[in-house]
C-alpha cells in the first residue's frame, strides 16, 4: 500500500515535470504562429473579458492599495523631487552666471572701444576667489605669469577700474581691488580735469576718497572720476588714462578739498575681469619700471600715445 502510494507520487511528479519540460521546449522552439502560441492566444481571448471584469471589479481595491503604496513612497518621491528642484536651481544659477559673465565680457569690449587700450594687451580671465575684510580686498584670478600677467598690471571689468595685480604665480594671480587699503589710484575729474589721489576709506569699502584736489573747484555729486594715466608714488600702478573709477557721491567742505567717490565697478560681484598687460621690453613697460624705481613724491611723465599721459597728480 505504502509502496504504491510512493510510486504514484513519484510518477505524478515525473509526469508533471516532463510535461512542463515538453511545454517549455516546444513553446521555446516553435514560431509565434505555432500551436502552443495559438492555444495561449485562444486562452487569452477567452479569459480577457473575465480579466477585464475582474480588473474593473478590483479597481477600488487597487486604488486603496495604490493609495497606501503612494503614501509609503511619498517620502522617497519628495526627496527625489527635492533633488530635481536643487538640480534645476543649480542649472538656473549657472545659466544666470553665464549670462552675467557674457554681459561683463560685452562691457569689457565696450570699455576697450571707448578708452582704447593703447600699448596694453588684455588677458580676460575668471575670478577664482574673493577675500575681503576691512583692510584688504583681494580677488584671485585664473591667469598668471604664464599668460603674461605681471605685478602692478591694471585690472578692469566692463564697468571700470577694478584694481591691480599684487601677487603672481605661473597659473594664477592675486588682484588687490581699488578698495584695498594698499592701493592708490591717480585719478582725474572728467569735468574739470583736476587730478587727485583715490584711496579707500578704511571701514567703508564701498566708498573711496579722492584727495588733494584744488580748493577752488566746483565739484558736484555725479561727476565722473577716471584714471589720470599718471602715478604719484613708488610702487603705484600705471593705469591707462580714461578708465572710469567711479562717480562723486559727496563733497567734503575742507581744505585740501576731498570728495567721496562711489566705485564704478561692482567690486563685490566680480566674475570676469581683464588684466591689462604690456609686452616685455615695450615702451610702456620701460616707463612702468622707471616709475616703480622712483622715490616717493617725484612727479613722472611719459609720452602720450603709449597709453601713458602727462603727470598731474600730487602727493
Amino acid at each position, binding site marked *: 500500500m505504502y509502496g504504491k502510494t510512493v510510486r504514484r507520487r513519484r510518477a505524478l511528479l515525473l509526469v*508533471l515535470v516532463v510535461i*512542463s519540460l515538453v*511545454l*517549455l521546449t516546444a*513553446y521555446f522552439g516553435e514560431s509565434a504562429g505555432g500551436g502552443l502560441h495559438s492555444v495561449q492566444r485562444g486562452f487569452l481571448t477567452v479569459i480577457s473579458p473575465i*480579466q477585464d471584469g475582474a480588473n474593473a471589479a*478590483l479597481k477600488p481595491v487597487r486604488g486603496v492599495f495604490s493609495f*497606501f503604496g503612494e503614501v509609503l513612497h511619498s517620502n522617497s518621491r519628495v526627496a527625489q523631487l527635492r533633488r530635481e528642484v536643487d538640480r534645476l536651481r543649480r542649472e538656473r544659477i549657472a545659466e544666470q552666471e553665464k549670462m552675467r559673465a557674457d554681459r561683463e565680457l560685452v562691457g569689457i569690449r565696450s570699455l576697450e572701444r571707448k578708452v582704447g587700450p593703447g600699448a596694453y594687451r588684455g588677458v580676460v580671465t575668471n575670478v577664482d576667489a574673493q577675500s575681503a575684510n576691512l583692510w584688504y580686498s583681494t580677488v584671485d584670478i585664473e591667469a598668471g605669469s604664464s599668460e603674461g600677467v605681471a605685478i602692478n598690471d591694471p585690472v578692469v571689468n566692463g564697468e571700470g577700474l577694478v584694481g591691480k595685480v599684487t601677487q603672481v604665480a605661473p597659473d594664477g594671480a592675486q588682484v588687490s581691488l581699488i578698495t584695498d587699503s594698499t592701493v592708490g589710484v591717480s585719478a582725474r575729474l572728467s569735468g574739470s580735469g583736476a587730478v587727485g589721489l583715490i584711496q579707500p576709506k578704511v571701514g567703508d569699502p564701498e566708498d573711496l576718497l579722492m584727495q588733494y584736489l584744488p580748493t577752488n573747484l566746483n565739484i558736484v555729486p555725479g561727476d565722473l572720476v577716471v584714471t589720470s594715466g599718471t602715478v604719484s608714488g613708488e610702487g603705484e600702478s600705471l593705469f591707462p588714462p580714461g578708465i572710469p573709477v567711479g562717480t562723486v557721491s559727496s563733497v567734503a567742505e575742507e581744505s585740501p578739498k576731498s570728495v567721496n567717490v562711489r566705485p564704478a565697478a561692482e567690486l563685490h560681484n566680480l566674475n570676469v575681469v581683464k588684466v591689462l598687460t604690456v609686452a616685455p621690453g615695450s615702451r610702456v613697460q620701460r616707463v612702468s619700471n622707471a616709475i616703480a624705481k622712483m622715490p616717493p613724491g617725484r612727479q613722472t611723465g611719459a609720452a602720450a600715445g603709449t597709453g601713458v599721459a602727462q603727470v598731474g597728480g600730487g602727493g
Partner: protein
Amino acid sequence: MSSSSSQGALALRIAAVAVVVVFLQIGVVAEVPIFGVSVELTPLLAAFVGLLCGSVAGAAAGFCIGLLVDLCLVQTLGINSLLFTLIGFWAGRLQELRDPQGALIPVIVGAAAAATAFVGYSVIEFLLGVDAPVSFELLRQIVLGIVVDTVVALPFWMIVRRALQGGLPKDPRRRRRARRSYSTGGLSPISRRA
C-alpha cells in the same frame, strides 16, 4: 462523505482559490509595488497548498497554478509550471515527512518558495538565452522580492489555510489539539481505540 467526493471538494476549493489568487495577483497585487517590487502570491500559494494538502496535491496544484500564470501573462509556457510543481511537491514532502508545527514554518516555507521561484525563473530565462548581463539591479530585485514575499507569507498562509480548511483530509489544528491533549495527560490514540 466518501473519500473521492471529499478529494473532489478539496480539488474544487484549491482550483477556486488558485483562480482567485491568480486574478488578484495580475489585477491588483502586481500593480502595487512595495519597495520597487511586487509581491508574488502564486509561488506562496503552491507552497502552502503542498504544506496543507501533501506532496501530490501540492505538485498538481503547483503545475496548474504555474500553467494558469503562464497562460494569463503570455509567458513562455512551462517555466512556472515546472517551478511551482517542484515548490508544491517539496512543501508537501516537508509536511509529510516532518509535519512541522512551528508558527514560523509558513514564513520559512514562503521564503524558500519565493527564492526558488525568483532564482529559478531567472536561471531558466538565462538558460533559454536572454542576452542580458546580470546586473546588481536584478539581484536587488530578487532579494527584495524574497524579502517582501517573506513578509506577506504569514498573513497569506492564514488566508489560504482558512480557505482550504473545510476540505482538508486532516485538519492540522485538530491534529495539533489532539496531540497536545495526549501529551498533557489525555488518552493516547491507542487507548482511545481500545
